[in-house]
């Protein structure tokens, strides 16, 4: 029974938050609602017994990704209202509803739902984190390493794309050169 209450509560909250995200005209509200929605989704993961996943969701998504978005918002100066020319509301909502209905039909069809077999069954006794660890470093090792490389690439890409004065390297310049540069900069200000 508790599970049902938790499910419906969090479901309601998540849906509300996300609806705010997509409909509000204030960018700050959208960001905050998105962050809240992420947290509530992690609640779902905990209900489902995927503890590790839930924690990862909070740390990575809510912590890192939302922080990135916040910084991005500061950069683009979108704290004010965003003026948007609206498309046809009915097409948009209609299409989405149709997509939703179709997916439910597909997923709820007995033909598809009957044929799922467990490939990597849960081992009883061990906690969720341990189980994930065991699977991650054995069966999913290669995707794990590749994901690591990909994150590295993304990080370097992010720095390169967003950095200023990338052709200068402060660690390789001598102290006198750094002083010269500072004086030139200050001259301009004056």
């Amino acid at each position, binding site marked *: 029974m508790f*599970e*049902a209450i938790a*499910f419906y509560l969090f479901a309601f909250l*998540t*849906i509300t938050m*996300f*609806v705010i*995200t*997509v409909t509000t005209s204030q*960018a700050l509200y959208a960001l905050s609602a*998105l962050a809240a*929605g*992420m947290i509530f*989704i992690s609640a*779902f993961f905990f209900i*489902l*017994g*995927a503890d590790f*996943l839930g924690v*990862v*969701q909070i740390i*990575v*998504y809510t912590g*890192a*990704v939302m922080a*990135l*978005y916040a910084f*991005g918002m500061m950069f*683009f100066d979108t704290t004010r209202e*965003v003026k*948007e020319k609206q*498309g046809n*509301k009915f*097409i948009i*909502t209609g299409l*989405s*509803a149709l*997509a*939703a209905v179709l*997916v*439910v039909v597909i997923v*709820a069809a007995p033909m598809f739902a009957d044929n*799922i077999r*467990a*490939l*990597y*069954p*849960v081992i009883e006794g061990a906690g969720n984190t341990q189980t*994930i660890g065991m699977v*991650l470093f054995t069966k999913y090792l290669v995707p794990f390493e590749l*994901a690591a490389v*990909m*994150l590295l*690439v*993304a990080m370097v*890409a*992010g720095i*390169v*794309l*967003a950095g200023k004065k990338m052709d200068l390297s402060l660690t390789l310049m001598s102290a006198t050169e750094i002083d010269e540069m500072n004086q030139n900069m200050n001259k301009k200000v004056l």
Partner: protein
Amino acid sequence: MEIGLNHYLVLSTILFAIGLVGVMRRKNLLLLFFATEILLNAVNIAFAAISHYYGDLTGQMFAFFIIAIAASEVAVGLGLLIVWYKRYGSIDLDQISTMKG
């Protein structure tokens, strides 16, 4: 009332639909990225639910990797957005349709 797999899947679908609405509606590129995040999270819920109800860890692993990928995607995406903003000064979709076919 017993919460079954179908409940979670319906929820996931509803969130996915909301994400679709956001994708189609938003004209500001940054807010478009928010809607993309919603899509990814909806799918994560579905994976975790299936993993739980069938006793298979594959769903959770998939969700895990999706989180990793989403993070890197945000990094690169924002980087590109910054470059675009510096070049064109606007991130409104209606004003950046230069590839008219």
